[in-house]
């Protein structure tokens, strides 16, 4: 059967699954953001935007991996524009290739190249605070099997990020690229991940003014969950919990470090703890679709939306250099089913998706990207109307958060908790 023309949401998903070959007509060295592995979990590809009538879709499409050589999709340049051509049916899809921000090649006052401090992933600024995930240093290594972060040490990245550098980069990214969201991420830091991120959160809130997200391996015990309250006092707006696989067997097998140090339950406890204290949709559960059975992924989505968080669902990418490089990329039909379920689950649970200003995450199918996958019936239109009203109501809150402002929390400690020391 002939492959039908894809709508923007379907095209996004199929590009994630199959990747994109680059025709010789492309001149990405001058037109595109550099492909960067600064955060080399699942993203090592080319940033693209698929225009659409409901919303434009940002994605980081695989271009380096060996499976890409078999992709029917080819990126071509037509004059000043780009299009993705599907060789199975000769359909052509106009796309935009975001250009490299001017600040990427600039240096901070300390002389660090700015793109080695943080990179745009979609429309937000991603900063991997320290690239030394301790799971990589264990003998035998306990790294997550889909990840390649440890292989980057000394190869592609600078190591520990300086707070002043981060502030400078965040400021330039906000001024020149319209960034509204800065996301701090770190691998395993022997239980110190959240504390390590704290100084950056406060500095960005006070000196730049942006929404701030935090991701680290959660504490192993309930007694340490106060760190999230402390980070909220320091200005954190969002916490994400990357537990990757819902089925305990797959979690244990593919995330041996997380299993051994804190266990899957720590992610659930931390997410439930934070979401119960924050506005609906302020937390997210991050999972990878396309490895464990689909039913487990659907169960994960129901669980995450059930606690009031929103699901961030990555389509599994057998990243070049990872232990899972030789795994197959997921099937398109399966991923459409997952993403459609994600959208419906968010709407059913009244999760406010697409409400925060200008946050498009290119490594995942954003929950509101998946609106392209459902029929446009009365319920669909009512849902969109509700979200538009929420967006309008939330404007004032976001405007305040996007201004630099004093933060009440202190890096010296948190009431009732053990004193902490900032590392930077």
């Amino acid at each position, binding site marked *: 059967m002939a492959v039908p023309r894809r709508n923007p949401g379907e095209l996004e998903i199929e590009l994630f699954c199959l990747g994109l070959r680059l025709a010789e007509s492309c001149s*990405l060295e001058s037109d595109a953001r*550099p*492909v960067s592995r600064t955060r080399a979990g699942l993203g090592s590809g080319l940033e693209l935007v698929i225009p659409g009538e409901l919303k434009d879709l940002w994605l980081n499409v695989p271009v*380096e991996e060996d499976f890409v050589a078999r992709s029917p999709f080819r990126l071509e340049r037509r004059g000043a524009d780009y299009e993705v051509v599907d060789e199975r049916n000769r359909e052509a899809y106009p796309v935009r290739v975001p250009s490299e921000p001017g600040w990427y090649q600039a240096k901070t006052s300390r002389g660090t190249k700015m793109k080695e401090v943080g990179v745009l992933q979609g429309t937000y600024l991603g900063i991997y605070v320290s690239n030394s995930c301790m799971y990589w240093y264990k003998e035998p*290594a306990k790294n997550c099997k889909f990840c390649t972060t*440890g*292989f980057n040490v*000394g*190869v592609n990245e600078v190591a520990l990020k300086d707070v002043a550098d981060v502030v400078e980069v965040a400021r330039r990214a906000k001024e020149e690229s319209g960034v509204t969201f800065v996301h701090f991420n770190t691998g395993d830091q022997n239980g110190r991940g959240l504390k390590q991120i704290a100084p950056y959160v406060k500095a960005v809130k006070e000196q730049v003014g942006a929404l701030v997200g935090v991701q680290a391996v959660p504490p192993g015990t309930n007694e340490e969950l106060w760190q999230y309250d402390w980070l909220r006092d320091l200005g954190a707006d969002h916490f994400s919990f990357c537990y990757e696989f819902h089925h305990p067997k797959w979690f244990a097998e593919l995330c041996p470090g997380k299993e051994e140090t804190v266990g899957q339950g720590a992610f659930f406890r931390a997410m439930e703890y934070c979401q119960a204290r924050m506005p609906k949709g302020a937390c997210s559960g991050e999972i990878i679709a396309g490895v464990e059975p689909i039913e487990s992924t659907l169960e994960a989505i129901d669980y995450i939306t059930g606690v009031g968080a929103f699901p961030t669902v990555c389509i599994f990418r057998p990243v070049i*250099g990872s232990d899972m490089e030789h795994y197959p990329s997921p099937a398109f039909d399966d991923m459409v089913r997952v993403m459609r379920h994600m959208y419906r689950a968010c709407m059913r649970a009244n999760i406010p998706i697409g409400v925060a200003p200008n946050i498009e995450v290119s490594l995942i199918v954003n929950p509101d990207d998946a609106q392209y996958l459902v029929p446009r019936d009365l319920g669909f239109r009512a849902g969109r109307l509700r979200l538009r009203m929420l967006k309008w109501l939330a404007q004032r809150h976001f405007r305040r958060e996007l201004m630099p402002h004093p933060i009440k929390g202190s890096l010296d400690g948190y009431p009732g908790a053990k004193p902490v020391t900032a590392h930077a």
Partner: protein
Amino acid sequence: MLEGWRTTPGDEPSPLVMEPWIHALNDSEGYFIVDTSKAGLDFAERKPGSETVERCRIKVFEPDPGVGLAMAYKDSRLTHSLDRFAYGFLVARRRPFDPSDISSMLAYLRAGFHPERRPESLKRALPYTVPR
């Protein structure tokens, strides 16, 4: 067999680090091409009958005097990208590389870095900056 290996006068790497590799490559059944535009001994295999070299590479270099390091990696497919995709590192401190380690590393290279051929002695992280 090895083709293209040469050093710049005054920039000769330590025999302790390089010689075991040169011998192993010359004695191997594979045909290896050195990329002289890259630092250290940086080579890839060319399969029989093929015009081009394979994507998998090994770079042997000396980050500190007496320390030998071999990195298994792939270069980016994209002409405008400087990314390198590492698969692991073999380290020899103040001793020559073990011939059996070199042999395993070459077998890993020739197998396209297939995970089942990954040498047990390969490290996953290293405290050195890898030169271009």
